[in-house]
């Protein structure tokens, strides 16, 4: 049981750690860029 929890925690930390190496870039993803419409006149304004 202890081994199982240890593996689970280690697994999570490894994956999270791997993910966090991209943190600098992935934080850039937590944003809402809004491009203008390809229709040049946006249909949301009708």
């Amino acid at each position: 049981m202890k081994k199982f929890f240890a593996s689970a925690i280690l697994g999570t930390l490894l994956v999270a750690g791997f993910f966090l190496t991209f943190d600098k870039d992935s934080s850039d993803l937590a944003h809402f860029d809004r491009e203008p419409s390809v229709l040049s006149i946006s249909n949301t304004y009708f």
Partner: protein
Amino acid sequence: MEIGSYIKLHRIKQEMTQAELAEGIVSFAYLSKIENGKTEASPEVISLLCTRLGIQLDNEKDITIKNKCQEWYSQLFEVNDKDEIERGYNELEALMEDTHSESMVMFEIHKIRYFLILGRYEAALTQINSLADLSSTFDSLHQFYWYKFKGNYNSQVGEFNQAMRMYKLAEEKLNHLELAESEIADLQYTISVTHSKLRNTLDSIEYANKALDVFQRNYNFLRCAQCHIMLGISYRRLKMYDKAIKNHNLAKHLGKLNKNKQIIQLVNQNLGVLYSTKGQQEEAIKFFRAIIDDDEVHIVERFAAVASIVNEYYNVQNFEKAKELVNQGFELMKQFGNMDPYKLYYYVMYTYYFALNGEHEKFENIVINEFIPYLKKHKDYINLVIYARMLAEHYENSHQYKNATKYYKLANSAYEQLTIL
């Protein structure tokens, strides 16, 4: 060739088979050749076929129609007045109803863009499907617009890879055509926007600059503003913040000159994002607030700004403020009526609402059973990374490591998809 396509179009509209139309006039095999431009029939045969279809051949009227079409086509790119565009459409429909016009096929192709501008995506798709059979008879000019507007449809429904394929096909047609440079620039702008959606930042810059060059020479300030916004977004992603700010400010200046609120608020949204990236939260919030507080701004733009601020406050753990903005978001949501086109924001609001109020089960339920499947379906890898990660952190904090690992992995694979794109 045009008359053949015209006959085919009218026959299909009237749900007539080739045999029914051809009977007593020509064989249906010959009719097929006429329709597909493989032969030129005699004026007598054409006249008999048109009579059966109830259409006239009137050259004088045709010139009028041609001029009105050209006017209407440019409205589809520049004019913001929905009524004017609809009036033009109805007038042309009536004119073309019973008179053969050389402009018929091009008009039918432009209807795709017309429906998209009005937000009638299903009608646009129906129009695309109805023209599919005819497309093999299109000349290069027809094909240019056919690919371009099909691309526009893909863009509007979020299928950016397919959109890019269409725009590239349209771009190839430019080698066989002599189009006005503003027409070429519009396609280049469109490709820039699509590259941006696909996170091809350098390509987005390249195409934005090409388009900007033309729009500057033509003093088309509005289109210049749009290109500057594209450059602002791209430079931000490259962390070239000074260049990004300069471009956004230029866009804003041009928006003010044109008194165009849409441009101004789009710039505010993107400047908010920029300052958020730089870690200047207060500046970021100022820009988002400017959008929310402007009643004249369309509700979707205000909602996007609310979602941005909630995200800001949540990330710096200012949960009181985050809750306040979530409530504001819900107030805005009441005005939507049908949430379907804005499902993303609906999920964002409720995800934060449940997370902020400690309603763990509801939080897990909405993210796992609704939000993540929605994001997967729409291939929205950016938000998949963000919200899978949010879920994973939630599980990690409650010591549910197996689930945490699962959703960190999902976030990771979504991130990989982004880098592949």
